[in-house]
Structure formats: structure tokens, C-alpha cells
């Protein structure tokens, strides 16, 4: 190998690298957001009027998406939109941990034009980084249920609405229809009835797991806490009041570490389940995937999950015979519980120079046909009257459940520093015996909960 050739090659690589670095500059020219995060209101007014003529010159929108199932669907919608609106291109960025990436971006002054299907921390809504849709009556009038608008209102300033929902997601108790029918088990409404049902399964079908936990994915355990003890708070105070109490960390109303209170009862319930062998022994190392596999293939009788899991369950076993009940109430006096909450949010950056184009794209996304296809994609009913579709084989079950259960229109709020992932990890600790008594668990829970509030949120 001649030396000259080698040094030439190196020089070529080096210059190619530098040139490619220069090329990157152009990409970013079209969609920089205002660098200052604390710009005054007059800035945003100027930005919207400046982009008034935005449809003339080519506009590139950035869209951050946090849901992998929607990547291809969004690409399809983007293509359809661009055909009708030449001059506006939308660039989708999919991130597994979209929430985290969003935090880094915004901290560097780089707010995406559109954020879809990802959790936006409350702190960003508080800083008015996102567009307020409150005046958009064209959208709100199309809702199947006007109360949905109240549910998606901002938690701190209810007169504002920073995101648009697309579907309603439900959570509940999946059950193996044939086994349940065989054992003659009725729908368990209370925790006592539920425990009795689990006992029956264990006795009559020893090779089945009565209730299967996918604890390795800690959010599955964290959600149990949201459905059971926190859901119970919602039942006691009403959804809106409960929300306010949770956000304010109102100890007198929440009573998180009260002796015999909800968290303790929850811990006791889990410990009982474990001691009696009514949950899988590998509860803390089995994954969400294992959990779905268990209910799909008849290895488990009950699984507590959301409707989003249905598509994967059917993928694992197209003939899976599952039903959907509400989740048994934990505390005496609680009704069976379901979350039926607007989901699939879409937000638009307030300070984006391309805001008008972004809003146009969102308008397109919300149109009836697009919403119909989304509803089918996610196995969830649309929030819009004109977008009803056949969204799931369990829609009949859910219609029944809605009549008997306490349906929470919102997820119980959790502090940003102690979200359902983190809560789930505390439950993992419980499963591996880190806490000797339910009271110990309740105390640890309360400590973590308090620490999870950042000074910014309070």
C-alpha cells in the first residue's frame, strides 16, 4: 500500500467529515425555535403574525413521537398531508424515551413543533411552551362526550387546554373466558370476591397462575398502585378533587401513610397474594411480554392491563378467548374500577415560527377519516363523534363494564419524580421481601412520593 495513497485517503476522510458537518447547518435553518425559553407574550404574538404567510415558502415541521406502534401510521398521514399541502414537510422523530429526549431538547431551546403520543411534563405546560387549544370549538364540538374537554384541561389552569386527545384508553381485568366459565366464577366486584376467585383457580387448576404479574417492567406494578389505592382516592373524593389533592400533596386528604389506610391495604393485599401463591413466583422478573403471553396462551387466569395490550395478545394467539372486566375495588365500599381516560395527545409548540403550518397538520390529523384509522390502530374508541369505528373485539365487554364500574376519566396524577416506573420499583422491592410489614411499605412509599415533587412543580 503506497504511503501517498494512505495519506490521501486520510485527508479525504477528514475533509469529507468537515464538509458533511457543514451540510448539517442547512437542515436546521428551517425549524429553529426561539432560543429563549422565557420570552414574553409579545414574542409569541410576533411569531404567529410572522408566520401568517407561512404557507407560501417551504416549511419544515418537526414532530416528536413517543409511540412505536404509531410510527408507520404517522408516516402515512404525513405523506397524505404533504400531498395536499405541498410546501409543508413534516419530519417525524421517533424516540423510545420521548419524554426524556423532550426534556433535553427544551433545556437547549429546541422545542419540537409538534409533540405526539408522549408524556409532556407539567412544568412545560406551566411555562406556556405549548399552544392553548381552548378556543378551537370546531374540535371540541365534535367530542362524543363534552366532559372530555374538562378532563384534558390543564391541571393547574383549567381554563387552558394544551393538548388534543384522540382516543379513550381503558384499563381493566382480562380473564380467560373458558376457564372462568368452567369454574363458574362470577365477575368479582370487591377485592374479597377477587381473592376468592383466585383461590378457586388455584385449587381447581393448579397448573395455572391465578393472577400473573409482569413485574420486570416496573410500570405494570406502578399502574396497579394507580388503579387500586390511588383509584380508591379518586372514588372517595371524586376525580377532579382527587386530582387537586394529588397535585398539591394534600396529606390530610390523601392519607397515604395512614395506619390501615389505602397504601397499607394495598401492600397487605400483595403480600397475601404472594404468600398464598396466587401470583406467579417470578413476579418481579417476568416481563410485560411474559404477562401477555400468559393470558394469551392459557397459562394465567387473570391479568390486570389496559386495552392497549389487546393487539399484542392477539398477535401471540389469534384465538385467545379473553374477556374484559373492571378491576375489583380494593377498599371496602369501593366500586369496581376502570380508567377510561382520553389518551393519545397531540401538542403544538407555542413559540414555533411555523405554528400556523403545525396547526394545519394537527387539524388534518384530527379529521374524521384519519381518526377512524387511528382508532382501529390502537384498539381504542375515538373521542370524536364522527370517527366511530369497529375498534376492538372487546367493545361489547367494555360497554357492559362502563355501566357497572366507577370510570375514572383521568389517570391518578403522580409526581414527576415518582412516576409509575418508580412506584413500580418500590413494589418490586415489596415482592422480593424488602419490607417486613405493610406499614413499612407505606412509609417508604410516602417518603418517595414526597421526594418526587420538584420545587418547580410546587
Amino acid at each position, binding site marked *: *500500500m503506497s*504511503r*501517498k495513497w*494512505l*495519506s490521501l*485517503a*486520510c*485527508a479525504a*476522510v*477528514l475533509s*469529507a*467529515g*468537515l*464538509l*458533511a*458537518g*457543514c*451540510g*448539517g*447547518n442547512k*437542515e*436546521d435553518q428551517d425549524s429553529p425555535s426561539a432560543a429563549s425559553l422565557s420570552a414574553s407574550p409579545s414574542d409569541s404574538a410576533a411569531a404567529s403574525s410572522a408566520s401568517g404567510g407561512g404557507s407560501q415558502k417551504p416549511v419544515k415541521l418537526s414532530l416528536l413521537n413517543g409511540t*412505536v*406502534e404509531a*410510527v408507520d401510521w404517522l408516516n402515512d398521514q404525513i405523506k397524505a398531508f404533504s400531498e395536499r399541502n405541498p410546501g409543508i414537510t413534516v*419530519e*417525524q*422523530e*421517533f*424516540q*423510545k424515551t420521548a419524554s426524556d*429526549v423532550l426534556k*433535553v*431538547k427544551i*433545556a*437547549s*431551546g*429546541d422545542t419540537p413543533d409538534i409533540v405526539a403520543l408522549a408524556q409532556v411534563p407539567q412544568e412545560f405546560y406551566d411555562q406556556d411552551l405549548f399552544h392553548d387549544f381552548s378556543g378551537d370549538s370546531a374540535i371540541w364540538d365534535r367530542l362524543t362526550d363534552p366532559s372530555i374537554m374538562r378532563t384534558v384541561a390543564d391541571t393547574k389552569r383549567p381554563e387552558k387546554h394544551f393538548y388534543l386527545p384522540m382516543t379513550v384508553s381503558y384499563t381493566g381485568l382480562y380473564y380467560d373466558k373458558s376457564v372462568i366459565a368452567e369454574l363458574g366464577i362470577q365477575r368479582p366486584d370487591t377485592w374479597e370476591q377477587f381473592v376468592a376467585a383466585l383461590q378457586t383457580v388455584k385449587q381447581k387448576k393448579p397448573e395455572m397462575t391465578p393472577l400473573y404479574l409482569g413485574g420486570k*417492567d416496573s*410500570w405494570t406494578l406502578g399502574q396497579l398502585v394507580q388503579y387500586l389505592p390511588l383509584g380508591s382516592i379518586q372514588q372517595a373524593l371524586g376525580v377532579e378533587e382527587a386530582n387537586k389533592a394529588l397535585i398539591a400533596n394534600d396529606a390530610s386528604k390523601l392519607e397515604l401513610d395512614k395506619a390501615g389506610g389505602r397504601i397499607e391495604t394495598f401492600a397487605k393485599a400483595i403480600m397475601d397474594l404472594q404468600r398464598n401463591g396466587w401470583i406467579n413466583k417470578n413476579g418481579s422478573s417476568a*416481563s*410485560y*411480554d411474559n404477562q*401477555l403471553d400468559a393470558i394469551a396462551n392459557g397459562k394465567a387466569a387473570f391479568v390486570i392491563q389496559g386495552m*392497549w*395490550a389487546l393487539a*399484542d395478545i392477539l*398477535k*401471540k394467539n389469534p384465538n385467545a378467548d379473553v374477556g374484559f372486566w373492571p378491576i375489583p375495588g380494593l377498599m371496602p365500599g369501593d366500586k369496581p374500577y376502570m380508567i377510561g381516560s382520553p389518551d393519545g395527545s397531540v401538542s403544538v409548540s407555542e413559540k414555533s415560527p411555523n405554528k400556523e403550518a403545525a396547526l394545519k397538520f394537527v387539524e388534518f390529523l384530527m379529521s374524521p377519516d384519519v381518526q377512524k384509522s387511528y382508532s382501529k390502530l390502537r384498539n381504542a374508541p375515538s373521542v370524536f363523534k364522527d370517527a366511530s369505528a369497529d375498534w376492538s373485539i372487546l367493545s361489547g365487554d367494555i360497554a357492559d363494564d362502563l355501566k357497572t364500574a366507577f370510570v375514572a376519566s383521568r389517570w391518578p396524577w403522580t409526581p414527576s419524580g415518582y412516576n409509575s416506573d418508580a412506584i413500580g420499583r418500590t413494589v418490586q422491592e415489596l415482592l422480593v421481601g424488602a419490607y417486613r410489614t405493610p406499614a413499612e411499605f407505606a412509609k417508604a412509599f410516602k417518603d418517595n412520593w414526597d421526594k418526587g415533587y420538584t420545587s418547580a412543580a410546587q
Partner: protein
Amino acid sequence: MRKTPLYVLMAAIALVSLVPFYILLFTAMSPPSVSLADSGLLLRHVEWGNLGSAWRHSHMGRAMANSLAIMAGSVGISVVVSAGAGYVFARVGTWYNRLLFSLLLFSMMIPGIINTVPLYGLMKSIGGINSLGAMMLLLATGFIPQSVFLYTNFIRTLPRELEESAVIDGCTLFGAFWRISFPLLAPITSTLIILNAVNAWNNYAQSVFFLQSQDRQTVPIAIGRFVQTYGADYTQMAAAALIGMLPAVLVYFVFQRFFVKGLSAGAVKG
């Protein structure tokens, strides 16, 4: 000493090392419903379709092109600048050179996490987001400390006369280094190519933040798409991982002849 037990041991460690590849192969080639347990650990039903669908769903072709560019660029840049720096540190023993050398080594101990958030702002200000070139420079920077270390050590073992006699013949020291000494550094260069090319290829932590748009994503990000919070598709992941691994394995096979020699020359001789 009888050789048979040694051969047995050798075979054993070779097999043990290949287990992960077998797992990947098995998972990639089986239909999703067949697990390792079901088929008694042996590959019974071969399912070629997984490779194709993994390729398509993860846009592997595009990802590989991006990864290839970044790998070539970052390794090329780091080799060139590190060899140059190695020359200076090896030949010119001033106090500030020694200090800089120690600082470079020192920096290898600093966890990268400290840099992440400020780095994002920095990259954004130079227009480096979504830029393959900026990624090349960033990764090359990461390779510099170790590369400079190896080059400096090895150049020290080359006699100064090598370059100086070329000067007498009419070269500058600059030219002498690149024409005469650098080719002699081939074992080190090969070693660094292997180590850094693999690192560049597998880089995830930086790529995921800075290469955002779908057509700039690299192989690890493409593979990562199959392992989600809400359920993992291991069959596809394994298929994508197998395909994605090939270029790195190729680089390794091409350069590995010099691997031991390079380390021996540049690092291990006191």
C-alpha cells in the same frame, strides 16, 4: 505435557464464546411463537422471513449506510489526528506536552454523563443535530485519548533517526512522519481501527440524542426500535442485531491479524 486436555479446553472456551451468537441466530431464525424452550434448544424450523421483515421495519439499509459513514469518518479522523498528536508527545518532551498527555489520559476516567446536557446545547449551536459530520467529530473526540496513548507509546520505540535521516534527504519533519513513520505504525492503526470501529458502530448513547430524524438513524437505534417499554419483539430484534453486526464483524476479521501485534507494540511493552 499432554495436549489433549488443552484441546478440549480450547474447544470449550470457543464454544462458550459463541453461545450468544447461537442465541441470536436461533431467535432470529425461528418463528415468533417458537421459543428456545419449546424446540429443545435446537434450531428446527428455519424462518427466513424474519430477516426480511426486520430489514424493512427498521430501515436497516439506511441505518447501515449512516453507521458506515460515521464509523469510517470517526475512525479515520481519530487515527489521523491522534497519530499526529502522538508524534508531538513522543518526540517533543516539553512540560506542557507532558501535562497535556496526562490530561488526555485522565479524561478517560470522566463519566460521559456529565457532558450530555451541555453537549446537546453545544451541538445545536453549531448546527450539529442530525449531522453525520458532527457525529463523526464527536465520536472521534471520544477515541482520541486512548489512540494518542497507544501512538505515543509506540512512536517512542521508533528511533528519531528515522525521521531525521529523511530530513537530511530533503523532507520536512512533517512529511517524514507521514511518509516513513506512519506506515510503520500499521499494527497500532489496525488495533485502533478494530477497537474504535466497533465502538463507533455500536454507539447508542450519543446517537440517540443527536441523530433524530428517521433517515439519519444508525444501526443500534434501528435495532432498539424492537425493544420497547410496551412489549419487545425479540425475534425481530435478534434478526436486526444479526444483520447489523455484520459490518463490525467484517472489520474485525479484516484487521484482526494485527490486533495482538498492535497491542503488544503500542501498549504492552512497558
